[in-house]
């Protein structure tokens, strides 16, 4: 009897009491409250979410919202397992492809089950190189003008160029962040592209911002600034002028001169909100190699010491592995050294690991489980085992791999490059 008085009732201060309570009482097939729908949908892959846009108006509204895109992204950043299921490789090889990271790393000996998706990206169908100077006919034959006859009629040669038509322009991959990949499908023409949803936005040209267009080879860096919720591209042109693009304002600003005498050509490497370039000492007054980092938030350059490499004649370049900064250089040898900065920003924490794999050029892509790393070595993909020092070549069917240009990692997301500028207007 006494128990009745002591009985404690749960429900008055619960997390979401009224909503759940009322809904539950409605019948055997209760409708989930909106908060729970968000919790469930934020665990789905992008493909499912694109499909479920047509479930109902409220789902379409939810899935299209910037807020949900961020919730969905954040879940992947917090949860390792979700993150690894959303990880993809983007492969640039006269075309762009995306591959599920898991399918690359889980394949045992048979790599035929690696699923490759050919992407639809901006300027994909722009004629490639010299093909653009030729006529193109619907029967997939080129007509090439050889000369003129006496009556000034053109003499044409018909070329069966079906196979070579599959060649497209090189696509430069500048970098990726939060599921948005910055690509340059044509010289100095940049796009922010979400390979998972297919959305893209062309980055405004400089003259729209009252600046002269850059010519010559430029180096770019791409990243996200959380404090202003903005995506930025930093550019160093061959006259050493530094400019910055903000997606929020959709415009370029000139920042000043690159404070070093070195020229940089490669894309800068993004880590922790900084874009990094390695400067080679032989061009510096200082005999050491140097890592220059551009703070995307403060829009300033900083520097840190590169690892102490005796051989100052070799090129060094930057990479990341398992969220740590790496410095790489090639000794053109059977063994190469990879330097890892164990504690970001602390030059004393550079640690050398030996990698028994010859390369001229290597880009670490990511760490997989059990001391293995996915590496891009001289245009080919390798799975390297740090534990026992062995490596395996990974063949990805459907990609002409001898011809690989670049590989980068991205996470699939719903983040739309078109929601930032529009949000302010």
């Amino acid at each position, binding site marked *: 009897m006494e128990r009745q008085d002591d009985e404690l009732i*749960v429900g008055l201060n619960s997390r979401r009491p009224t909503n759940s309570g009322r809904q539950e009482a409605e019948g055997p097939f209760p409708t989930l409250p909106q908060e729970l729908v968000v*919790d469930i949908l934020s665990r789905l892959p992008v493909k499912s979410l694109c499909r479920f846009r047509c479930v109902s108006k409220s789902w379409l509204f939810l899935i299209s919202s910037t807020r949900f895109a961020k919730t969905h992204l954040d879940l992947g950043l917090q949860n390792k397992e979700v993150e690894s299921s959303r990880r993809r490789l983007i492969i640039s090889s006269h075309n762009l492809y995306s591959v599920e990271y898991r399918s690359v790393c889980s394949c045992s000996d048979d790599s035929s089950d690696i699923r490759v998706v050919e992407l639809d990206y901006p300027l994909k169908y722009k004629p490639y190189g010299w093909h653009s100077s030729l006529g193109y006919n619907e029967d997939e034959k080129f007509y090439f003008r050889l000369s003129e006859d006496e009556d000034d009629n053109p003499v044409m040669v018909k070329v069966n160029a079906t196979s070579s038509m599959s060649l497209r322009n090189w696509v430069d991959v500048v970098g990726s962040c939060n599921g948005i990949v910055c690509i340059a499908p044509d010289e100095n023409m940049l796009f922010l592209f979400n390979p998972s949803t297919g959305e893209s936005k062309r980055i405004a040209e400089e003259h729209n911002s009252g600046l002269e267009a850059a010519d010559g080879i430029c180096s770019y860096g791409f990243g996200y600034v959380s404090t202003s919720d903005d995506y930025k591209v930093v550019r160093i042109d061959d006259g050493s002028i530094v400019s910055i693009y903000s997606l929020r304002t959709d415009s370029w600003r000139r920042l000043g001169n690159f404070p070093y005498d070195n020229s940089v050509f490669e894309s800068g490497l993004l880590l922790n909100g900084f874009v990094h370039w390695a400067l080679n000492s032989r061009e510096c007054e200082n005999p050491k190699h140097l890592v220059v980092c551009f703070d995307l938030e403060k829009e300033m350059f900083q520097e840190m010491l590169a690892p102490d490499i005796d051989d100052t004649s070799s090129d060094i370049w930057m990479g990341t592995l398992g969220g740590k900064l790496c410095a790489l250089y090639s000794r053109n040898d059977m063994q190469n050294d990879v330097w890892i900065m164990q504690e970001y920003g602390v030059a004393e924490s550079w640690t050398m690991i030996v990698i028994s794999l010859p390369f001229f050029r290597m880009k670490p892509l990511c760490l997989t489980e059990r001391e293995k790393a996915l590496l891009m070595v001289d245009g080919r993909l390798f799975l390297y085992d740090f534990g026992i020092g062995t490596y395996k070549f990974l063949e990805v069917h459907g990609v002409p791999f001898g011809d690989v240009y670049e590989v980068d990692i991205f996470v699939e997301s719903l983040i739309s490059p078109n929601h930032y500028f529009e949000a302010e207007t």
Partner: protein
Amino acid sequence: MASTDDKVILKSSEGECFEVDMAVASHLQIVKSVLEDCEGSSDKVVSLFIVEAKYVAMIIEYYKNYVELKEKHEEGGFEEKLKEFEKQFLEQIDKKELKGLVMAVNYLNAPALFDVVCTAIAKHIENKSVEYVREYFGIVNDFTAEEEAQIREEHRWAYDGVNDD
């Protein structure tokens, strides 16, 4: 039938009583805070008046195993063992019941199980058709046929590889 100090009785919406260890019940944040608020009361009966008995039983089963595994694998390997158990735990739950369970877990504020059930529902619908998902969640299609066709057209590739069983 006096409860000992480390036991608590959870009462379902039908009035069914479940006696559980405090170590298990304290994973339900809502129960924990109610008990803390009413410290000193002799008999500890917590009425979860909107949660059906079958869900109370599932939640207790999950956290009983959770607590046991955590104790047993203090040295390491807990997460792996928990994953194994979760797999087997989910296998015995009807897909339709996952919805009721997720609401109950959300209401009782039990984060670990909440994540497990949300992930299970997401996995279940991941490759399902739009029609299946509407039926599963009891959602009425409020698009006209033209509107729906247009939305489908925008992401046509997303409709490949769908299964309906």
